[in-house]
């Protein structure tokens, strides 16, 4: 694999408001967010529903532009989406008219790089263990399989920044734990910057080197916790429980250590 690229992602005083359709009001989805992130970090974003987690990811992806402030990669402002910043959505959004293989190769094809890189596609199919389904259409896949395909569809570009918007939200507990390890493995191998939104505090601590806690109305960062524990992490260790209590406290769920 090519030499690792070090990137710095900065959000400088970013605010984002949306106009409401019915009334003349606006929703302040994000209010003055300042963040700096580096390659090699795995950042978990947690917070109540509607606090602007998805909005942050969409800003970084370049799908929307900030109302005020700047989102920059290595000092250069982001203006449009790019395969350098791969995004996995909450819904797999696989293209139903393409087979699994063509879905994974979609990005290469769009950039005119598919010729000569077919083995890369095959490799990705191997990574997620769907060799038998490579000619199937997404309608024939289970939810977990579809999410795995969506994951490698973005990974095939070897993005410097990987944006994951609740990629495991729709999966059952077992598939979910397997996928967590798989994502970690992929991230450890390349050491890119990964930013993952999650509803699950345990997942945030299990995977993140840094957990960013947000709150709503207006959407803002309330806490930024670094977790220097080595991988793989033990979900029942003392430090794990301590982190969980701390984060739940920040989320106003008291310190009893129950799941949010």
């Amino acid at each position, binding site marked *: 694999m090519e030499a690792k690229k070090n990137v710095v992602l900065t959000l400088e005083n970013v605010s984002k408001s949306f106009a409401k359709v019915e009334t003349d009001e606006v929703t302040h989805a994000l209010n003055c967010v300042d963040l700096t992130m580096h390659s090699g970090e795995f950042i978990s974003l947690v917070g109540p529903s509607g606090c602007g987690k998805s909005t942050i990811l969409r800003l970084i992806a370049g799908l929307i532009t900030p109302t005020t402030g700047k989102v920059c990669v290595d000092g250069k402002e982001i203006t*449009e989406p790019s395969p350098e910043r791969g995004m996995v959505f909450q819904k797999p959004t696989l293209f139903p008219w*393409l087979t699994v293989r063509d879905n994974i190769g979609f990005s290469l094809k769009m950039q005119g790089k598919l010729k000569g890189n077919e083995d890369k596609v095959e490799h990705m199919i191997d990574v997620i263990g769907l060799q038998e389904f490579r000619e199937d259409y997404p309608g024939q896949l289970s939810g977990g399989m579809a999410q795995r395909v969506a994951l490698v569809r973005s990974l095939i570009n070897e993005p410097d920044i990987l944006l994951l918007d609740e990629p495991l939200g729709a999966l059952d507990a077992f598939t979910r734990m397997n996928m967590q390890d798989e994502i970690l493995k992929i991230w450890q191998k390349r050491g890119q910057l990964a930013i993952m939104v999650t509803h699950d505090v345990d997942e945030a601590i299990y995977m993140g080197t840094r957990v960013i806690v947000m709150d709503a109305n207006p959407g803002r960062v309330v806490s930024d916790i670094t977790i220097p524990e080595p991988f793989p992490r033990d979900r029942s260790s003392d430090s794990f429980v301590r982190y969980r209590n701390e984060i739940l406290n920040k989320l106003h769920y008291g310190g009893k250590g129950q799941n949010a």
Partner: protein
Amino acid sequence: MASKDSKAAMPADTEKLTRQQLRELETKEKSKGQRILDRFIIALPFLCGLAAICEYCFIPNKSPNDNPYTYLGALIVLVLAYLCYGIFAAMKLRAGDKTVIEKYRYKAPLYAALFLLLAAYDYLTLKTGVLTQPFVPCMNYILNIAWIDRAYLLECTLHTLRLLFLGYFIGVAVGLVTGITCGYSEKARYWVNPIIKFLGPIPTATWIPIIMVVATSLFGGAVFIIALGSWFAVTVASMTGIQNVDKSFFEAAKTLGASERQLVFRVAIPHAMPSILQGCTQAMSSACTAIMVAEMMGVKAGLGWYMAWAKSWASYDKMFAALFMICIIFTVVTKVLDKIKRHVLRWQNGVVK
């Protein structure tokens, strides 16, 4: 007809299950009575064909019938064709392929009904005259006249086909361009929408008198009318199709590096394909209506014109011959469109089942 063996036992090695075996495992085993019934149904069209032949040969005619062997020959050919198809299916079955015989069994009642219908029609026309003779001619008359007038009938058929496809393809091509552009671009929609709203509700036939006055060539005018109808159907269908594309697909494609152009051709159009093809089918039926009206009212060639012309000379047998020709053409065209649609949209299959 062919022997149906007992159902295949569950293969020890489930890994190598074929689609056919899976179907057999999942459908209930047929009882003995059912299997006898199946055989009877498969033989039924053959029996009905024989009945139709007997009806034609042995019941005395009420009106004179020249050249009586044409219809008889046609019936025999149909029965033989059915028989050959059956033998082919039986051979396939011997070779282990059950799909052909299943399809054969599925269609058999329809074929039987067809033969019965032919017999009934012959009985009502030639044999009893319930349907008065020269006005509703019997099959034998129609076939005879079709054969005698074959050169001219063929010429008219070709003319109709040329007109139909020329108008249809022009309409569909232009309709795709406008529909897709309008579906994608707000600005284009601003200008085209009023045109659609204004022209849309007017039936195509309304244009014919105007075209006959204005157009320099009637052929060109007819092409225009047919194209207009098809254009309308395809434009509306592809526009709604493109507008309904899920925004999340565009977002996903953008983060995967798709350019604006690729968003249209690689995401919007494939996603809108079901709707676009629906529009194409609708366009064909509107084109078929338009062409008949055009040919009966103005254009001096083609099957529609042939029908109107035959009527004015009171040659009702010719009229019916043309009618059957039209039916055949439209059936074939619709069937082909359907095949194309099924092939293009095969990705939908898995979802539905």
